[in-house]
Every structure is written in structure tokens, then in C-alpha cells.
């Protein structure tokens, strides 16, 4: 599904190398987790894959189902099936949540040469999905993320994911700022989307989220590289001993 080879990235504005050769292969149907200390480059990886400004790829490749992601515009990546659940979902005053989602869904469909969804079908679909995530109708009517609590914002991210049905979902510290109940809701939402044709890359500091969204593979990232990969046990090891042991071991 997602193939990253030797990906090296620096900041556009300053001479600072953030990613120093990342290799990662996420197969369809699997859940991979990336853990790592602050500043290791986890979030940068998610931004670069989604096409955010401010980064320069100096080496390497990233493909989604064989298509060169790095050559695509941000919106093309989305239409190709990439989705990033933001660590800090953006508030957009004046743009209604429903308008936003319908515009996005139809734009993606159009880009893929599919029929646009009718207003009625859209309404039915979003009501059903919102209900699963305990998002009430009032929240849907409000401007995107405006006045939402931290938990509501994250649930809204998952709702978008459920509506857009991407192939490759990247969750960037979706657990940050969530209480236990919200984390369960969000995780249930993600788990409901697990599917043979879909893959997940879950970026997190803590093992806690991985209790709910159980990964197939866990990677440890440090200083711009993936330094160790293993099974779910690796996450438990991090939780117990911190990163220091692992980093010393691979140094």
C-alpha cells in the first residue's frame, strides 16, 4: 500500500535535516504504529506524506499503490486515498462542517471519475456515521471544529475518515488531549474502518492508544530514522522501559 524508501527531508526555510532516510512498507489490511521520542521526525513524516508546505524532500521516494505521492498536489493525494488525521485539527470559522465534508467527498469522487453524491444520500450517510461516533446533529451544523472540545475535534477527524473512506490512514498523535472515554470512542471508530483493503499508520507517543487499536507492526523512530521494528511487544517494552534502552541498543 504505502512504500517509503530512503526518504530524506529538510526544512525549506533553514538548513535542518529532519528525516534522514526513512524506510517503511505498510501492506494493505495492516496497522503499523510509529513511536518515538519528541523531535524524532514522526509528525514531519505525516506532513511530508500529506504534502504540507515548508519541507523539501532531498532524497528517497514515497508511493501509494505504486503512484508517486511526492509528485502529487495535496488534494490529489487525498483523492488517491491518503488521509491524515491531524494532531491539531484546524478551526475554520464560517465554513460549515457539512458543507466542508460534502465538498470534500464530491471533489474526491469527481477526481476519481465517480458520480457526485446527492444531498439526500449524503445526509443519510453522515447521520449514520456521526451517530456511531456520538457526534450530534448540532455539531455537524457548526463551523468546522469551531468551539469543539479536544475530544470533539478528534472525533470529527475520525468522522471525516469514515465519510471519505481512504485507503491509507495516517493518525498523527490522535490520542493527544483525549480522556479515556474519548480515546475509546475514537479507537472504536478506527477499528470499525479496519478492512483488508485499508491500511493504517498510527503515530503515537504512548502505548495506551495501541491497547485499543492493536497494531501488527511497531516501529521506533529516532533522529529521523526508523531504528527498530517489531511486533506489538515492542510498544509494551517502550511503555515499560522508555526509549533509552532501545536507543542505546541500536546506537
Amino acid at each position, binding site marked *: 500500500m504505502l512504500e517509503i524508501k530512503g526518504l530524506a527531508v529538510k526544512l525549506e526555510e533553514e538548513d535542518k535535516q529532519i528525516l534522514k532516510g526513512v524506510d517503511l512498507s505498510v501492506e494493505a489490511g495492516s496497522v503499523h504504529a510509529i513511536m518515538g521520542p519528541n523531535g524524532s521526525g514522526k509528525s514531519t513524516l505525516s506532513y511530508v506524506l500529506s504534502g*504540507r508546505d515548508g519541507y523539501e524532500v532531498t532524497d528517497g521516494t514515497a508511493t501509494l499503490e505504486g503512484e508517486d505521492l511526492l509528485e502529487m498536489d495535496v488534494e490529489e493525494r487525498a483523492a488517491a486515498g491518503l488521509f491524515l488525521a*491531524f494532531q491539531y485539527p*484546524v478551526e*475554520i470559522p464560517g465554513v460549515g462542517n457539512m458543507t*466542508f465534508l460534502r465538498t470534500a467527498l464530491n*471533489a474526491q469522487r469527481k477526481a476519481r471519475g465517480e458520480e457526485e453524491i446527492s444531498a439526500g444520500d449524503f445526509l443519510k450517510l453522515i447521520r449514520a456515521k456521526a451517530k456511531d461516533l456520538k457526534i450530534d446533529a448540532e455539531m455537524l451544523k457548526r463551523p468546522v471544529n469551531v468551539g469543539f472540545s479536544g475530544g470533539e475535534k478528534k472525533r470529527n477527524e475520525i468522522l471525516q475518515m469514515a465519510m471519505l473512506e481512504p485507503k491509507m490512514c495516517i493518525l498523527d498523535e490522535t490520542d493527544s488531549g483525549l480522556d479515556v472515554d474519548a480515546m475509546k470512542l475514537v479507537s472504536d471508530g478506527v477499528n470499525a474502518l479496519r478492512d483488508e483493503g485499508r491500511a493504517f499508520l498510527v503515530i503515537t507517543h504512548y502505548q495506551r492508544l495501541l491497547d485499543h487499536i492493536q497494531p501488527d507492526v511497531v516501529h521506533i523512530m529516532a533522529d529521523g530514522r526508523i531504528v527498530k521494528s517489531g511486533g506489538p511487544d515492542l510498544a509494551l517494552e517502550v511503555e515499560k522501559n522508555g526509549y533509552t534502552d532501545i536507543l542505546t541498543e541500536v546506537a
Partner: protein
Amino acid sequence: MAAPAVKQDATEARIAGLTLPDGAGWATDARNDALSRLREMGLPNRRDEYWRYTDPTSLTQATAPRAAIFDDRDEAPVFGEIDKLKIIFVDGVFDAKRSDPLELAGLEIERLSDAMATDIHWAKDLYGQREKAGQNPVARPLAALNTAFADDGIVIRATGKAEKPVCFIYLHRDETSDAILHHLVKVEPGAEMTLLEVGPAAARFNKCMEIDVADTGAFHHVRAQGRDHERRAATHIFARVGSESLYKSFTLTANGVMTRNEHVIEIVGNDASAHVAGAALGDGANAPFHHDDTVFITHDAVNCESRQVFKKVLRNGAEGVFQGKILVKEGAQKTDGYQISQSLLLDDDSTFQAKPELEIYADDVACSHGSTTGAIDETALFYLRSRGVPTDIATDLLVLAFLAEAIEEIDSEALRDDIVARLMHWLERRRQG
């Protein structure tokens, strides 16, 4: 103090081509008075402080510059879905045949010339009177010119609650038309009406509207200025607002090489509310765009509220101007005055100039004003694009979001929806070139 010679010459050149309408009845005095005031002031030029950001030349010169007619046949008309009484003007001339009969429960509607031909008429106490009062402390010579020479217009007296809006539809059919219209509106105590205006009116349009909202009256005004790229307009609204009354005006402007909209409101009764809002979209790609909102609100009563909300979206060298003033007179305690003017510049070529002013002579008031100029929020843009919304559509969504605060000033949901729908369509049309 008479105007300097250069101004006198320019003024005489302009009025040489105009004739005072005859058979004016009681209006003759008002016209002559306005004419002598105009000569005293002289038409504005670039050196006037009040015209520092807008060059009045094309509005004051003897003949109207040519303006091509905009083809809007493939567009749904503004207010098209709204049930309304239609009053149609073609190049500034009332067209009785195409208009609805001037009859609506709760309203008395007449053509200006008919009102002027009636010896005893309420309009006598309004025509030129608000305009004259509004010349102080700032001169508005184009309005005086209007009072002197306007030979068409509509007068409306609201005596009850009008069941539907009255809509002035200004058609532009002649590329060289030069129209001067003067309307009067008097809202009696407890009465309520909505006035809509739509269309370019002429190649050059000078419009003056005098409005008197009596105690406990309510007046709603929603206007969409025509989309003809080369059209020019100088409009003045003079309103007097009585106690416990409501005055609300919203203007949508897209296109127009030159627009100067002046709004002069005097709040004279306690517990009244006056809101003026505007949303302007300017794209200098097809023709230059210059849009100037000049607002002067005077608080001369206790416990009144006023709001000025003006938003401009500018690109390809478009120019926006806002001059807004809140004057709180001595004794106008508990005044709540709010003023915001904001521009969204979509490129580096466009400019926005703002002159917000507060002048306060009462000590127990809450007045705030703010003015900002900014670009599209890149973070929001990225967020929308990351969900698959193409850049141009995402930009338009953010443009609409930016304008929302001004559009929210329209009370009627149906009118608000109509304005938003038209805006979305126009943005879409521009996207598709």
C-alpha cells in the same frame, strides 16, 4: 466660503449638461437650495481630504465614461426566488409597464415626479432635507447634485407591516447612460418594510436615498450592485433613526470599476439600533476594481447601538477603501458602537486602505473599532486540501467564510440564503473563467 476657481469650473462643466427638472412644484425650492449648496461646495477632487483614497474624476466629469453591458443571461438573478414587488428602472428611467402596480398593503408607493406634483405631500419634509443635514460636518457634493437634478425616483411611506419586500431593479441597457435617481422612504411608527435594490442602473449612476425611520419603525435594506465591470456608481443614503427603531442595511458588490457608497446615519431617538454592512468582491483581471465604503454614524440619543461591518475580498490589483466614523454626541450615554473593516487580499497587487474614526463626547459608552488586512489562512487552506478539496474551491470556501460576518447582518434567512447562493455561483463562474 466659495469653492476655489478650479472646482467652480469643474462644477459648472458638469452641471452645464444638466437641466433642473421643470414642473417641480414644491421641490423647486429644494432643488435650487441644493444647487446653490453644490456651487458653494464645488464637486470633489483628489485634493479633498474625504476623497484621498478614491479619485472622483470619473464620477464628476461632464459625461459618463462608456460601460460595456455585462452578460448575465446564464445566471439566476439576485433575489430571483424572493417574492417581491418589482419596480423597474431602465438606465435610470422608471418603466411602469414592466414594473408591478405600485400597490402593496402597508405601503404607499409613488413615482417621485407624481409626489412632487402634489401640493401637500409628506415627501416635501424629506426631499433634500436629510441630504442637507448630512452635509455637515463633511461635504457630500455629489448628493447635493443629485437633489438638484434627479428627475426620477420612488417615494415610499410605510404605514404598516409590508407583507413582502419592495425591489428596485436597475437595468443597464445603454453603454453611455448617466442616471440620477432620488428615492425617499418614510417608515411611520410601528411600521416595517424591506427594500431590495439590484443591478448596475447605468454606465454611471448617481443615487441618493433619504430615509426617515420613525419611533418603533423598522427598515431593512439589502442591495446587490450590478456586476458590469465598467460601471460607475456614487450612492448616498441619508437616514434618520427614531427611538426604539431598527435600521439595517447590507450591500453586496461584485465588480465595478468605481463605486463609492456613502452612508450617513443619525440616531436621534433612544434605544434605537442601526447596522450597516457590506461585502465586496473585487477582481481587477477584467477591468480595474475600486470600491469605497464611506460611513458616518452619529449617536445623538441614549442607549443606542450601531454596527458597521465591512468585508472586502480583493485580487488582481483590486482596490478597497473604508472610511468609517462613529460620532457620539454629548449626552449620548450608553452608546454601544462597533465598527470592523477587513480585507482579504488574495495576492500582492491588491490594496486596502482604511480610515476608522471615533469621536466621542459622552463618558459612559462602549465603542470599539478594528481594521485588518490579511491573506488566506494557509493552515486552513491546507486542511481543506488535505481532505481533497481543490485549491480554488477551498479558497472560495474561505472567501465565503470571511464574508460571513457581514452577510449575517441580513435578518431574513431567505435573503441571506439568496445572497450566499449568488455569491457561490459567481465564485464558481470566476473559477471556470
